């Protein structure tokens, strides 16, 4: 191996030494460049597109203006899609919270070696592609799927129930995929609760149930809100699951955007839809933070 020439490195280090600003810049440079090139610039391009018009064969031409946005809001199909996306996001979040809280609590309270194993079980689904996991539901709930097969065989129904291509199927598929995103943050925040707080509560006369509602639940709220935020944002923007398990009525905003770009070749309108979606999500996060302000949990009124 050729010996490494240290001279250039040394001179570089000499240059950095004692210059805090330069050092900070160098440390932040890669991530700044990443955000600039892959997030900010594309967003600006999308925004500019959203102000343009569609030309012959999907080209971008003038005139420029807000007409795409006006079209989006004036058409019931599109506003319905937005509302449907938000509704499905809300349903998925609520069900994930209801279904996920107890497993998270159980995991956090488990003080044995099994815990690591159970957490791995929770993460294993991430190793499989979402497409495969979603296809599994088609095999289970399809007209010839396992569910209908056994119901028919047991004589509980005369003809297959139509379960797929419905809001039920979309929500179920999304809950299945999103559940770990709810469980992990809640688990983390319950795990962080000091055992002595629970002891203190019981010592003061609160039974297990009251201790749970008075101490554990409020102190797990940071995890709950982190989980809800994650699940909501990802669910509202879901593409694959509604595309595979939903019917025409379950068209969600990501599908709408994809159709505009790749099927209709109306990039300007697709861009406008993307910007609307972005603004709505930012607004939702903002409102959410305002409603369940995390700092409020820890700080009281100063007198």
């Amino acid at each position, binding site marked *: 191996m050729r010996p490494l020439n240290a001279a250039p490195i040394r001179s570089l280090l000499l240059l950095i030494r004692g210059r805090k600003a330069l050092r900070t810049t160098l440390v932040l440079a890669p991530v700044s460049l990443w955000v600039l090139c892959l997030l900010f610039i594309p967003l600006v391009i999308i925004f500019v597109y959203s102000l343009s018009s569609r030309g012959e064969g999907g080209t971008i031409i003038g005139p420029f203006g807000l007409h795409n946005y006006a079209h989006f809001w004036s058409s019931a199909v599109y506003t319905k899609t937005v509302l449907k996306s938000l509704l499905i996001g809300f349903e998925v979040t609520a069900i994930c919270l209801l279904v996920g809280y107890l497993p998270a609590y159980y995991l956090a309270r488990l003080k044995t070696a099994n815990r690591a194993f159970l957490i791995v079980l929770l993460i294993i689904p991430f190793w499989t592609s979402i497409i495969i996991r979603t296809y599994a539901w088609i095999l289970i709930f399809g007209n010839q799927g396992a569910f209908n097969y056994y119901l028919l065989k047991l004589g509980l129904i005369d003809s297959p129930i139509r379960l797929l291509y419905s809001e039920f199927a979309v929500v179920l598929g999304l809950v299945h995929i999103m559940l770990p995103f709810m469980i992990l943050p809640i688990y983390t925040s319950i795990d962080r609760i000091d055992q002595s707080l629970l002891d203190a509560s*019981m010592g003061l*006369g609160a039974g297990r149930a009251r201790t749970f509602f008075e101490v554990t639940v409020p102190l797990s709220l940071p995890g709950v809100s982190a989980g809800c935020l994650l699940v909501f944002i990802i669910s509202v923007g879901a593409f694959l699951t509604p595309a595979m398990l939903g019917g025409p009525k379950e068209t969600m905003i990501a599908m709408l955007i994809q159709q505009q770009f790749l099927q209709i070749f109306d990039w300007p309108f697709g861009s406008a839809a993307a910007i609307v979606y972005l603004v709505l999500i930012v607004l939702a996060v903002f409102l959410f933070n305002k409603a369940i302000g995390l700092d409020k949990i820890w700080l009281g009124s100063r*007198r």
Partner: protein
Amino acid sequence: MTADVELVGVAKRYGQETAVNGVSLKVNQGEFLSLLGPSGCGKTTTLRMIAGFEDPDQGAIFIKGQQVNRIPPYLRNIGMVFQSYALFPHKTVFDNVAYGLKMRGLDRAEIQRRVRQSLDMVRLPGFEGRKPGQLSGGQQQRVALARALVIRPDLLLLDEPLSNLDAKLREGMRVETKRIQQELGITTIYVTHDQVEALSMSDRIAIMESGRIIQVGPPHQIYESPENAFVADFMGQSNQLWAAVRTVDQGVCRVETDSGLSLAIAARRSLAAGQRIKVFIRIGTVQVFPQEPEEEVNVFPGQVEALSYQGGSTLFYVRLAGGTVLTAEQTRRSRSGLPPGQGTRVWVRVSPDDCLALTGEAEHAAS
């Protein structure tokens, strides 16, 4: 006096580890008893079993004559202050203190009255609306104490409540805690590893080591008449010399240390010639003289090997003939007239009454 708390042969194991190994103890009504010992000696586990957070594997615990082994903590009516204070971070000071009252189903007016009274007692009036995160360590400690006492518990348990405070504040809270305890006359068990806390606050001290109680008694007895080497070593700072008993005569006993020093000691316990013992001499009882003193008993010439200035006092390390190094703590007053400095020739004297000879388990425990 009736025993408010009684432990009979209580033991607790965690897997292979024995945390508490057959502890029996009586705490009288209104008494302030400290469980004192190094970390890992089982004192906190003992306290947690009394509180009901741990179930003993063996033995029985009685509170006010009733066996409580199977009674969960929320039915025991015990006030506890935790080392970390364990204040609910999401609740205000008022809600923290009111918590136990709310659980007891008291009406609002009564809760308000008692919370106020309780915050007055710990001298924190007007702090009701704050959250624990906005309080200093000392204030948090007071709130924790108020919360534990507001429920009028049968028993107050304190688990190293002062160990997270800085030295100055700790002293103030020591006095304060003791004042409140005496005002209420509440039976109190106090866990600490700090001997100064235990000595200054307690009616009685129970010294724990390796899951056992090895000596129980009032502070002065624990300090002045330790029953074995562990207690003698743990309480205060002592010169420790291995020695063999030469002669025993009318309560005075001559011993020869391994380094060849011939010492007269007061034989407070039955010592026999030929026995191996360990002699403990507290550093504060060793006197240092610039000239040869007139007494003749236990006076040894030596040389100041090192000095360590401690502020209120100075530690002298004096090397005697035969190589023994004695540590002597001299306060400012007793040091006056003494030529300071390393290498100075001095005489040291130890009173036979200040030499503690410990045998048997002492050798076993300390070796």
